């Protein structure tokens, strides 16, 4: 077992342990923190695959963006003494069953799939290429998804402004 494998096993262990902890903890902010570790370890995996751009995106978007937003909203709504409602045994069992079934299907699929282990050619991913791919309409181009996502984000932004906008009658004239 060499250094790289150790690294992989370590990251995988972190992901698995903290994934379980996310769903088993009874404090919502702790769950968010465990989720952060899961996401960071995933970023570590990307980095391990020498896919730095993806790792940075993972950290910036998921860890730095989404988890922060989750934590921020938890802060606004939850007091420190709030605890999650404990789940009944039948529901727990049901959840375990479904999760186990899902895991089984995945594992069976992975084991049965004949992975093509031909060495992939080293890909130099620099920013210029990513940018060109993003606005490219041809092969390997992502112009359409890019634009669709932009419109989605715009809609989300407008929606957020509409929700956050103060109602005229409610304004305290501050």
């Amino acid at each position, binding site marked *: 077992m060499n250094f790289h494998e150790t690294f992989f096993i370590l990251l995988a262990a972190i992901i698995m342990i903290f994934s379980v902890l996310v769903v088993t903890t009874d404090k919502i902010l702790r769950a968010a923190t465990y989720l952060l570790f899961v996401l960071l370890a995933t970023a570590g995996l990307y980095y391990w695959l020498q896919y730095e751009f993806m790792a940075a995106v993972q950290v910036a978007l998921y860890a730095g963006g989404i988890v922060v937003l989750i934590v*921020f909203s938890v802060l606004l709504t939850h007091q420190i003494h709030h605890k999650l409602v404990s789940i009944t045994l039948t529901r727990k069992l049901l959840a375990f069953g479904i999760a186990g079934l899902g895991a089984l299907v995945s594992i069976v699929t992975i084991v049965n799939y004949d992975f093509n282990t031909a060495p992939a050619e080293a890909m130099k991913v620099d920013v210029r290429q990513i940018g060109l791919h993003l606005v490219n309409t041809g092969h390997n181009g992502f112009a359409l998804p890019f634009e669709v996502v932009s419109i989605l984000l715009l809609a989300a932004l407008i929606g957020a402004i509409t929700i956050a906008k103060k109602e005229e009658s409610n304004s305290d004239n501050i």
Partner: protein
Amino acid sequence: MYDFSQLTQAIHLFLVQHLNSSSVAIVELVLVGLLFLTMYAILGLTLVYMERKVCAFIQNRLGPNRVGPLGLLQTVADLIKLLFKELLMVKKADKFLFNLAPFIVVIASMMTIGALPFAKGFQAIDLNIGLFYIISITSLGVLGILLAGWSSNSKYSLLGALRSGAQIISYELSVSLSLLSIIMFTGSMQLSVIVESQANGWWIFKGHIPVFISFLIFLIASTAETNRGPFDIAEAESELTAGFHTEYSGIKFAFFFLAEYMNMFLSAALAATVFLGGWMPFHVSGFEGLNQVMDFIPPIVWFFGKTFTLIYVIMLFKWTFPRLRVDQLLTLEWKYLLPINLVNTIVIAFVVVMGWYF
């Protein structure tokens, strides 16, 4: 002249000859880790000392002058004091998160230091997405502050954390956008490439007014992102006693303190690297004599000279201006910095396309 990579290459070759590949990786990791940890600690102590002296001179005082010559050992003495202090725990605090929070803050600030090019070849990791990496890691620091505020079970802390969250989330936009201007000029996010691109002049001179505007915005926004100066509403001493770290004591408090100073160093160093040429000496094309004199000064001196000048400016902000109110802080970002920045980005894109720069 003055190339650190020769030294690091020599060490690497030496290790390769004597050990197998896994051991080389481990030994190098440990070496780099130790080096950067030491540098981190020394920089932190220097910055705290510098802040004390700067604010003392601004305020017609002498500053620390008892421990060691010129009070140089004062921060060391304080660190020792903080190490020995009792770690207080708040009743009903979330112990796990309470203890975790300072580490998140400190690790986030420490991880970014490695990507900075201190001198030619003196860089722990030269990612091809260096700037993006730094931006993404700095966004983690706020999590530590949020967790610290919430887990302290204190109302002041929670308010501080909420303020900090709102502040950092919004100011990150301005920081990224102002860095984007230089990315557009160089076409690369690799910090070493950005520095190399300034061999014939720093971007702040090459890029005229648009770059100067983004430099100013970066300075303001990054000051805000480090919770410092007039933007320290998260710990607003006169309003929230100490904000998110009200309940922390001893070394855990020292971590927050250290992280704040290192973030300040980071933003100054980033501004120096991206806008002021990093370790590149000051060159004026056509004056060969001057250029050679400038080359004679080691790059590491250039880097730290620029960085500490900017740190002085950031400290001057803190000790001059009154604190902004929380809504004014957001107004400043969303009504002033961001629109100006967006317009500026378009202008820069135009400049880049037309090639109107040196």
